[in-house]
């Protein structure tokens, strides 16, 4: 086994599953109780400095932006971050709230690299540990399965492995070399969904990204939902409950919560706003100006939507939504 390699890490986050098991037993309500609260209450109640936080989905799609803006408003940091996310993580880094990042991809897709990430990393302010997209999702999956690790077949042979916290192992049955990745538990996970009931039973339309896995890997899970529906609606289609109530800690009603990102089938992304954001963040000053105006300058999510153009702008973006 001497020849088996380890990534040089560090492991920003590695909780023993038995510790998490005991925590889940003690802290999560297992009966159906109402968890409805405002974004302000949810963030204040569950997020603390020094915590490890993660968001879902990716690329400005079904992104928990209303929750992230509130996190910035409350200036809770330093945080460690699970690193998937274009607008969310970008904004948290811009706000100076991030210390370390388990990175997989952080950029603007067709629009290229993130000046915010560049400034943070190139100045040494934010430390990064490398993972692949699937590896990060599989780390959540390991946690969701109640396991300390999963074997996978990505990352082997690369610098991505060398600068990760993964380890090589040999399969006990076939002898093939595999990449072992440690479970990733979030202190707080943020997910935006199409609909939820007051207890936290959630439905998502379209692709589910890594919501199922991340939700189950979160010690505290804050869900924002486009729509709060009666429990009966959940009961009539229990096979659609991707995130069950007993893993949810807070349910926040947030119509337009993904803005300026997209919400599949409901509204298209606000391209003009995203472009303006990207232009603004080219400089550090511009980034701070953006935060000042659009985050600290808005009281809450409702106020943000109003500033974006309110019902009129929303109607335009709804008209551009992808149809079934």
């Amino acid at each position, binding site marked *: 086994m001497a020849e088996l390699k380890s990534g040089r890490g560090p492991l920003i986050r590695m909780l023993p599953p038995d510790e998490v098991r005991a925590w889940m037993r003690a802290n999560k309500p297992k009966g159906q109780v109402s968890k409805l609260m405002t974004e302000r209450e949810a963030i204040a109640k569950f997020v603390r400095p020094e915590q490890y936080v993660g968001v879902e989905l990716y690329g400005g799609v079904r992104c928990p932006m209303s929750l992230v803006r509130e996190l910035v408003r409350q200036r809770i940091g330093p945080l460690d971050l699970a690193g998937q996310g274009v607008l969310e993580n970008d904004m948290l880094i811009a706000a100076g709230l991030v210390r370390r990042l388990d990175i997989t991809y952080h950029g603007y897709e067709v629009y290229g690299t993130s000046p915010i990430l*560049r400034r943070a990393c190139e100045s040494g302010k934010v430390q990064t540990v490398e993972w692949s997209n699937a590896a990060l999702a599989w780390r959540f999956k390991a946690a969701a399965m109640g396991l300390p690790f999963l074997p996978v077949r990505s990352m082997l042979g690369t610098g991505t492995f060398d600068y990760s916290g993964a380890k090589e192992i040999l399969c006990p049955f076939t002898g093939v070399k595999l990449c072992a990745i440690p479970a990733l538990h979030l202190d707080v996970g943020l997910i935006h969904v199409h609909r939820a009931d007051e207890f936290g039973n959630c439905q998502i339309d379209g692709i589910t990204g890594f*919501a199922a896995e991340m939700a189950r890997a979160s010690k505290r899970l804050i869900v924002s939902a486009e729509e709060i529906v009666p429990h009966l609606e959940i009961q009539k289609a229990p096979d659609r409950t991707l995130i069950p109530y007993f893993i949810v800690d807070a349910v926040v009603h947030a119509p337009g919560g993904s803005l300026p990102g997209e919400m599949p089938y409901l509204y298209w992304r606000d391209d003009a706003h995203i472009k303006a954001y990207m232009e603004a963040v080219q400089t550090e000053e511009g980034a701070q100006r953006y935060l000042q105006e659009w985050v600290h300058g808005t009281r809450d999510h409702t106020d943000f939507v109003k500033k974006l153009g309110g019902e009129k702008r929303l109607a335009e973006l709804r008209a551009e939504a992808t149809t079934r």
Partner: protein
Amino acid sequence: MAAKEAYNKSEMLICSAARQMEDGAICFIGTGIPMLAAALAKRTHAPRLVAAFEFGGMGPDLERLPVAVGDSRTFHRAPVAGSICDLMEAAARGMVEYGFLGGAQIDMFGNLNATVIGDHDKPKVRFPGSGGANDIGSLCWRTIAVMRHGKQRFVPRLDFLTTAGYLTGPGARERAGLAPGAGPFRVVTDLAILGYEPASCRMQVLKLQPGATLEAVRAETGFELLVAADLADNPPPTAEELRLLREEIDPEHLYT
């Protein structure tokens, strides 16, 4: 060349990439050129091409061009809207034939850098990072890199090895634990279509883009290139390819 057939480098890359796609195959598609190429291939020689997007979309009609690998256009009228694990695990099972990749640097074995220039912990330039690229390079049967040619991109030694090509050469992927029989397949650039010489796993020029010469390709490559015995010319974009691209696929010229 007639005026109506004039085209830019992006268009040439897109048409060249589209021609690499096979009908009835599943291809992992990233944002940008691969999306346009997939949309073009579906409208030309590969109507049953299945574009797969790592966050769960699979087989959309691509009537409207996605702008993100997770957006709703990646599963519009698709048979499947799943999850990232779902699609990556399908690739691990051998279901995904092609994967498109990009990067800031490539070496002669097709290894790619999309992470940093300089030292990892205090980089000169921090790029977005692997994303799904490392997984695609590890799990798909054949990967196709699409890049602009240039000495700062085609380098003798990567600053960082984000995504596995053939690593250090023949057998290296298997020794690292990656599944056998898979690896880099093509590199599509503005100067050439390149492949890999099977015995050495080294990059070789297969076709020259219109107007390009072998000398120009070599001048823009930082390592020694092999050249296929049957070196050929890649035909320029056809009028029909350009029409589809400009009028149907990207009428707003978001990408071209």
